[in-house]
């Protein structure tokens, strides 16, 4: 089996290195960052932290150098979904492509270029330590399911989930993975931008009454949209928020990290996704809409003189 990881940042690298542990799987990686790709080709892809392994992965910045694959796993930031799948779609003429990205809307973009698509949600997180080395910060499950408008066969979804699990990252195949995806979406959309706008860690956001209430108000809008879509959430996002406050008090949301580094955020795939699915269902989402505008304003502030 050949698998190509599309976007080999922290999360993509975790998938690549774990999959490479499985004998019958040949792992390829596509990314645009030269030094990471060179380091992977030179010495393999190393995982530290919550896992300790080295994977033999063939990596390239040129998708023409990669053979046709049975599976693709798209792990770019949602901002780059379109450019990444445009560059690699030809590899999957006979394959199925999964998204393990943040937010919603990525599968729709992938489906514009690929016939069989898998909806995915993943909880493991990490960060690149140096070229060729990724630290696994947290472990967690991954959920995969057919993307209904252009679904991969359930047999394919199961096969992919089995090899990822065999590589050491627990993955479940579901006929409907929307519940898992929307639970994580609503959680992220209610917490990430609050951290980004205030500069508070996750624990502090939950400790202060003013921000904690706003988190719940945002969750309520997201749940109303999920409900209108007929999605049954995996768990109560409010409980996830309180749980995370205990286990990740000092965690700075990835969006806050983006803001501090003045990188564009994933706001369009998170709160922007809730807004656009809400509009389709005629469910008003004014708070999420305001959050999108404020984060975009913040991104624009970096272009101001002085």
């Amino acid at each position: 089996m050949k698998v190509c990881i599309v976007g080999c940042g922290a999360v993509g690298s975790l998938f690549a290195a774990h999959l490479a542990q499985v004998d019958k799987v040949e792992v390829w990686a596509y990314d645009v960052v030269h030094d990471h790709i060179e380091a992977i080709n030179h010495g393999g892809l190393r995982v530290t932290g919550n896992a300790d392994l080295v994977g033999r992965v063939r990596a390239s910045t040129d998708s023409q150098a990669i053979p046709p694959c049975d599976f693709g796993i798209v792990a770019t930031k949602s901002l780059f979904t379109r450019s990444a799948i445009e560059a690699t779609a030809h590899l999957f003429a006979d394959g199925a492509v999964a998204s393990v990205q943040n937010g919603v809307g990525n599968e729709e973009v992938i489906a514009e270029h690929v016939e069989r698509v898998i909806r995915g949600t993943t909880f493991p997180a990490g960060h690149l330590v140096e070229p060729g080395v990724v630290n696994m910060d947290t472990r967690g499950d991954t959920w995969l399911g057919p993307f209904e408008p252009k679904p991969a066969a359930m047999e394919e979804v199961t096969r992919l989930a089995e090899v990822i699990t065999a590589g050491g990252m627990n993955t479940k195949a579901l006929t409907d993975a929307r519940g898992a995806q929307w639970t994580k979406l609503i959680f992220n959309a209610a917490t990430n931008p609050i951290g980004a706008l205030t500069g508070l860690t996750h624990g502090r956001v939950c400790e202060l009454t003013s921000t904690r209430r706003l988190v719940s108000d945002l969750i309520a809008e997201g749940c109303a949209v999920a409900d209108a879509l007929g999605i049954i959430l995996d768990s109560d996002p409010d409980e996830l928020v309180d749980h995370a406050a205990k286990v990740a008090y000092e965690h700075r949301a990835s969006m806050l990290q983006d803001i501090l580094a003045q990188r564009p955020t994933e706001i369009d795939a998170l709160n922007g996704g809730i807004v656009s699915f809400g509009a389709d269902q005629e469910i008003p989402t004014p708070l999420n809409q305001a959050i999108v505008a404020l984060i975009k304003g913040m991104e624009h502030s970096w272009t101001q003189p002085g």
Partner: protein
Amino acid sequence: MPDSASRPPQRVCVIGAGSIGSLLAGHLGQICELWVLTRRADHARRLEDDGLRVSGKSDLRTRIRATSDTTQLPPFELGIFAVKATDLEPAAARLAGASPEATMMTIQNGLGAEEVVARHGDWPLISAVTFMSGNRQSDVHVEYELDTATWLGPWARTGTSVETVREVAALINASGLHAEAMPDLVPAQWSKLIFNSAINGVAALTELPHIAMYGDEDSPAALGWVVRKLIDEGKAVAAAAGVELHEDPWEMNRLAVARGETHSSDYAHLPSMLEDVLARRPTEVDFIAGALVREAAQHGLEIPLTSAVHRLVKGKEASWEITRPQLQEVKL
């Protein structure tokens, strides 16, 4: 300043010498005996030694008297509280019992300043809102940026006469600043409150100066959409409170960014709450967005976006781990 006397005030005390206080002192000190009450003793000494310099729209050097010690203040006829809303309570407490014959004027952002001052004395009160702005360059130098007007009106609960308000407006105009007396300031105060709540809140969170983007509502996630929604919420509160607005705050926003653009293509006025954020000072959000949230609650209204902005700015303040002891409970 008894209402029967028609002569203008001879001795004026400005309490607080930030941007607005310095602009008032630098101009009024040209035509009357002007005292400034500061918080810091070294600030008062520098003002006494160097006087006050105003640059920008005016070019002045003004000799003034200054002290940080309330007992050193001679009786004055007009007192102007020009401290930030967050500092008003302690400032008014310091003036308690001083110059019982004086008329006092408040010029703070938001709502509730008059109530705070009234708790500390029986002075007739003048309400004011100002649209002028300045950049404080140093303890003794302020740049006069926007030369827009200050509006004055009697605070009805103390029975201040319209005549008194007119005299004070005339005094301010004679000093080179712009003032307009109104029989009822509430409509103007609310127009500015609603404008400020939206513009200052958005600026504090995005760290964007007040640029054309604030008026752009072309796309669903455009910044102007939020500004418009925040303003609509404020207007709903005004309507519920029975206040007719003097000006439409959305038009004020449009004009402000348009005026800036004709002035200079990279016009970028920093709203005061953004200045506070950049300096990591406590903001006036409790008196602005917070005031609207409290008013809305009194009328059984929900204003979710204004509440969200209020909560986010409070969260942002908390992220600085403020240790100064000025976080006293706001009682309005």
